[in-house]
């Protein structure tokens, strides 16, 4: 290889050893999506070959030298129907197949473990229910469905894990969800795929897939002491939510025990399911979400609680399974004052949130 410049040689060598062509399949859905992907590649190749064969074949057969006089043909209904119906049929197959995958990816199973993700310029903050906090990293176990509840605290971001073939937009002001079940331990790319400003390309991280045992060890070694629900409980008390939501007979607000996933009738007569998105809206924009039978007296908490704080509150409310738990909150003495400035600052989180785990 003397005649190749050393720079070029090094470069070629780097290519040959460090050259990706297809992403790893590390989730249960990945092989299913790849099956459709390769079906589409196959159909495209057949279609392209057909078009190229027609063009090249006709160009050779009917070039002016070989075929000096054109024969005028109006068209052919049968032929045209053929190339309308066959592509339509193939496209419809892809539509149905794609829709099945889509519903699977965006419909989390009931037993999924929920992890919260907050996007902000330019980092991903991940909150495990056990109180583990991560930045630009996500640790998940194999063999267990994991649901991500995603929100952005500023602009659009998009949470993408190519090795799992899943992606979901992080939207300011509303929760989105996606789920996956990791299959192969390893470290995979995590990208922000929605352009979000200057350091968009730095908003990347690692998804670490671990065996259930390793994951449990990781959870134990990374916990900040308090679970997300405990953080939420503290916030619940410090924001004086329990002044009204206190389960007493004369309470001004409805009891929150078992409210999660229940059907609520609003003062507008509308019935809705109290999911995470509803709970979040009810905290930040209460006047739009009055439960039937209660006066619209709840003040908005917009700007007073950070997205992480809301997540902690939501997680707390989700875990409230009896009036007794609410009453216990009333007795919580270890209160952390919410910052007075009204701006969502670090203090809005429970103190444990500051002990974030770096990957």
């Amino acid at each position, binding site marked *: 290889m003397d005649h190749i410049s050393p720079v070029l040689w090094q470069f070629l060598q*780097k290519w040959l050893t460090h*050259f*990706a*062509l*297809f*992403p790893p399949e590390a989730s249960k859905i990945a092989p299913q999506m790849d099956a*459709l*992907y390769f079906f*589409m590649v196959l159909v*495209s190749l057949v279609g*392209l070959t057909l*078009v*190229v064969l*027609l*063009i090249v074949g*006709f*160009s050779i057969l009917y*070039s*002016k*030298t070989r*075929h*000096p006089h*054109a024969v005028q*043909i109006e068209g*052919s209904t049968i*032929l*045209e129907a053929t*190339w*309308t119906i066959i*592509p*339509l049929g193939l*496209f419809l197959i892809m539509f149905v*197949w*794609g*829709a099945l*995958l*889509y519903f699977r*990816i965006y419909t989390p199973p009931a037993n999924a473990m929920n992890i919260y993700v907050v996007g902000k*310029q330019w980092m991903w903050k991940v909150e495990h229910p056990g109180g583990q906090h991560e930045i630009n990293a996500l640790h998940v176990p194999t063999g267990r469905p994991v649901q991500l509840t995603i929100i952005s605290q*500023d*602009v*659009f971001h998009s949470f*993408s894990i*190519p*090795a799992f*073939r*899943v*992606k979901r937009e992080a*939207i*300011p*002001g*509303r929760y989105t969800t996606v789920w996956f079940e990791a299959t192969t331990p390893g470290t995979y*790319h995590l*990208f922000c*795929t*929605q*352009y*979000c*400003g200057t350091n968009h390309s*730095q908003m990347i991280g690692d998804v670490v897939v671990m065996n259930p045992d390793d994951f449990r060890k990781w959870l134990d070694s990374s916990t900040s002491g308090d679970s997300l629900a405990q953080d939420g409980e503290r916030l619940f008390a410090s924001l004086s939510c329990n002044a009204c939501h206190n389960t007493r007979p004369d309470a001004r607000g409805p009891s929150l025990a078992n409210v999660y996933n229940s059907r609520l009738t609003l003062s507008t007569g509308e019935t809705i399911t109290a999911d995470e998105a509803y709970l979040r809206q009810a905290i930040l924009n209460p006047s739009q979400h009055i439960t039937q039978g209660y006066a619209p007296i709840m003040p908005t908490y917009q700007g007073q609680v950070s997205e992480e704080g809301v997540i902690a509150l939501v997680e707390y409310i989700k875990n409230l399974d009896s009036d007794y738990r609410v009453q216990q909150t009333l007795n919580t003495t270890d209160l952390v004052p919410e910052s007075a400035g009204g701006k969502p600052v670090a203090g809005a989180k429970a103190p444990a949130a500051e002990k974030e785990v770096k990957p």
Partner: protein
Amino acid sequence: MSAATIVSLPDQSTARIPKMNFLTKENGLLSWLLTGDHKRIATLYLISISFFFFVGGSLAGLIRLELLTPQTSLMAADTYNKVFTMHGVIMVFLFLVPSVPATIGNFVIPMMVGARDLALPKINLLSWYLYIIAGFMVIYTMAAGGVDTGWTFTSPLSTHYLNTHVISTGLAIFVAGFSSIFTGLNFIVTIHKMRAPGMTWFRLPLFVWSNYAASILMVLGTPVLAITLVLVVLERTVHIGVFDPAYGGDPILFQHLFWFYSHPAVYIMILPGMGVISEVVSTFSRKRVFGYTAVAFSSVAIAVFGFFVWAHHMFIMGISNYAALVFSLLTMLVAVPSAIKIFNWAFTLYKGSITFETPMLYAFGFMGLFTIGGMTGVFLGATGTDIHLTETYFIVAHFHFVMVGGMLMAFLSGIHFWWPKWTGRMYPEKISQLAAIVTFIGFNFTFFPQFILGTLGMPRRYAAYPPEFQALNVFSTAGATILGVGYLLPILYLTWSLRYGAVAGNNPWQATGLEWQTQSPPLTENFPEIPIVDHEAYDYEWLERQQEKEVASVG
């Protein structure tokens, strides 16, 4: 490649460019700046969009250079963001949207329908001035420091979080939008009202049909974009809460409004290009377009369905799963007319008498690349695969196959095809065939690797990327260099041909369109007298009889 050609040029020793034509009728800068002649306005457009193509292309070169290495080595991330934003804004709004309609369409549509001009010549001139004002505003934006919203202006990023020149760019696109609304309006009125006697709807060349469909999209779609951008500007300046959740707005609403225009916009861009391909494929295979009515109606079908697929840009954005289902189905339906067109063009070749001049080579390039671009669109239209592929380089590759591989190929095909009519002179054939092939090869090298990058998950709009993506990016940048040569060549030899090209005569391609039955370059009035049309479009037998008659009467 066979040596046979259909080019029939007049005897070069005696042939002259007609003394009286639209180029020589009046002289002086003012006669151009105040002209109402559609051919002169088309010429003004051609010069201005070529300039902006050059600017946008140079920015693309910078993007590819930066992506040669995984780190941000050539420029900082925010500079890179400005470069790709300006590339997108210029290429979409100042090149692709006006490219075929405002230049080639402006030039040939009145002649094709047998009219002396467009219905509203002053509006036509106004439309060019609006385009130029928009162009200056974009240049001003670049000089003042640029804008880094991406061409999609996603709110709340554009309305709240960036301090670059969003307002001047937004207003520039607002103004450019009116330029395109006026062009569309003019075409619709002209095609309805100014057809020559005997020129029925089904005798119109397919180029007119496809531009008519595109005009409807322009007139109905562009106002929505204009309103959206005004709202973005208002939200930035006076903080009305429409899109930004911090002011009580809904960012998803922005996505709906933006894509309600911007998806039909891709059909605004591609439909006129499809019209060019119909003309070229028919002329160089000496045959009526296979299934004329199917091709004509497929243009209209694309225009109609094109309005009901916008939410396929939002499958991962938390729209309802059932909405995604409906929009995915409609997207599959809109893919069908494009497939029909491809096969109809391919079968136009069947039993033809084919020659391989430059416009035909570009048209073949279009058919191959558009097939790939269209099929990969189905990957993205299917909801499941869209989740993995959207917002990655797969998207970038897909729309460059459609817009550059499709539309730009069609534009170059059309420019070469009508160049003799426009200037009265032929371009040099051999070197232009070479340019067409170089463009095709360079294009594939540039954009094909990006499909693989996208499948790997490389996100778009990244100034830096993980090192294992470098090999494919190097391929892509190398291809862009070849592509650059492919685009520079026509600029050089077409300029050369203005003075040294062979005199073309009225109808060098033996084409049937009415524009070919008049002198080249045409008179300002297009025709000495308004033609009476007694034959179908692409009636090559009529043309032969016509020529026999002429020989007989001269002899």
